[in-house]
């Protein structure tokens, strides 16, 4: 295609957007609305994922060590543990620390433990965090086979539960996201279809004047792409603004709910603009197809 011709198509597309004022606004609005919904859900899903991962990473394995190990041996065990696949974090807890913590947990009944300091029955231990609940079982097994480790404990039941719950939350969230993505594509293409339908006579006339399919298609393609881009930009603007505001409000009011930082979504914004452009341009091109058959 000559550059001149391409410039002509772009000009035609822009002109058509202005002359079909309401239709253009309607299409842009549909793209913006659909992507807004989709974007909301992407933000929600990713945050759920994030929070769920955070919860998952709390799962702890305790490796009790044999009594009477040298410091060197203890350090070696620690180094060995950290090299296991799926281990996120390893913290050493000495006998003394363990007793302290135990006292803490007992709170007002801690006088029960008075006198144990001298003959501390609690062993040294390593507290290990796994990357995901799925890793816990494997890590526990590996750790238990290390020489010097007396016993490995973890809340198997809790881990299993957590694993199931978080997996299902993810599945459900992804399921909804897939539905919303489909619905978004449907809404956009639905709107484009009717705006093109309303202009079907125009397309027919162009064909009758001897325009080739591509000659008619290009301006529609570009128009659809531009409308998709503009609509997506509006959606992105609202989403980013809204999310920024939400983060700010949450930050000033509570700092407990930690959401994903906004910069995490920059990439997604790019994909969304791309999606808008693709759905818009393909939507137009596909919609005009049947009116070209004259």
């Amino acid at each position, binding site marked *: 295609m000559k550059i001149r011709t391409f410039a002509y198509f772009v000009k035609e597309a822009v002109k058509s957007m202005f002359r079909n004022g309401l239709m253009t606004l309607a299409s842009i609005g549909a793209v913006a609305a659909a992507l807004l919904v989709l974007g909301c859900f992407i933000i929600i899903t990713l945050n759920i994922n994030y929070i769920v991962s955070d919860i998952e990473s709390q799962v702890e394995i305790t490796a009790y060590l044999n009594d009477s190990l040298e410091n060197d041996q203890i350090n070696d065990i620690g180094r060995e543990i950290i090299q296991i696949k799926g281990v996120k974090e390893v913290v050493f807890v000495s006998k003394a620390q363990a007793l302290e913590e135990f006292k803490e947990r007992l709170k007002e009944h801690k006088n029960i433990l008075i006198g144990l300091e001298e003959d501390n029955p609690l062993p040294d231990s390593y507290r290990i965090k796994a990357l995901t609940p799925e890793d816990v079982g494997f890590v526990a097994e590996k750790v238990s086979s290390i020489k010097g480790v007396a016993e490995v404990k973890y809340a198997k039941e809790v881990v299993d539960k957590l694993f199931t719950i978080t997996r299902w939350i993810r599945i459900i969230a992804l399921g909804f996201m897939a539905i919303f993505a489909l619905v978004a594509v449907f809404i956009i293409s639905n709107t484009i279809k009717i705006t093109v339908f309303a202009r079907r006579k125009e397309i027919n006339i162009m064909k*009758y004047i*001897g*325009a080739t399919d591509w000659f008619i298609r290009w301006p529609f393609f570009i128009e659809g792409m531009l409308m998709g881009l503009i609509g997506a930009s509006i959606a992105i603007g609202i989403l980013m603004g809204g999310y920024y505001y939400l983060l700010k409000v949450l930050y000033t009011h509570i700092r407990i709910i930690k959401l994903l930082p906004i910069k995490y979504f920059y990439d997604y914004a790019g994909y969304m603009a791309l999606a808008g452009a693709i759905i818009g341009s393909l939507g137009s091109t596909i919609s005009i197809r049947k009116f070209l058959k004259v």
Partner: protein
Amino acid sequence: MIRAYNVSKVYENGVVALKNVSFKIDKGDFVFVVGPSGAGKTTLIKLIFKEEEPTEGYLVVAGRNLSRLKRRDVPFYRRKIGVVFQDFRLLPQKTVFENVAFAMEVVEASKKEIHRKVPLVLELVGLLDRQKAFPSELSGGEKQRVALARAIVNNPEIIIADEPTGNLDPDTAWDIIDLLKEINLRGTTVVVATHASQIVNTMKQRVIALRKGLVVKDQERGGYRIEN
């Protein structure tokens, strides 16, 4: 240039618009197609133009058998024919100028060429001063003349005009017919479907008369009435 071989056209709803129509129009001919309302004139034009397909028979236009014309060749075929549609078929979102220019853009004429040629043909049909108007801002006769301007702007081999003077006063109508005749004298084949009996009778050109889908007359230097 245009040959019809036993062409029949039955619309989906069962209306028989053309019955076993055959004729031959040579290059450079000037032909009037006449006949009462609903006789099948527009249908015949639609067939020539490949807007509709014949139910039976076939047409050969400009050396092409239309029944065998490939879909992707249709636009190129249509560019050889300039059509003035009975219902104008102007693009509502384009100005008068742009409507005419569009026919040239389709054949990828240069911008310079377009800006030279379009005002020329608009002048010919007397609409240069309305070139910035949209079709919805035009009178019936003005729309008709824009349609004509668009049909002739690419110097097609064949011009087909369906009732090109129906919305025009006699003077303007004659201007248009004279214009068509002039174009015809330069070698273009011209087919005009019309009800303007005075014009047909005065012009003394070939007349093909249809009635209820049948060719009832095909006469060199004919008149509007079947009887004369």
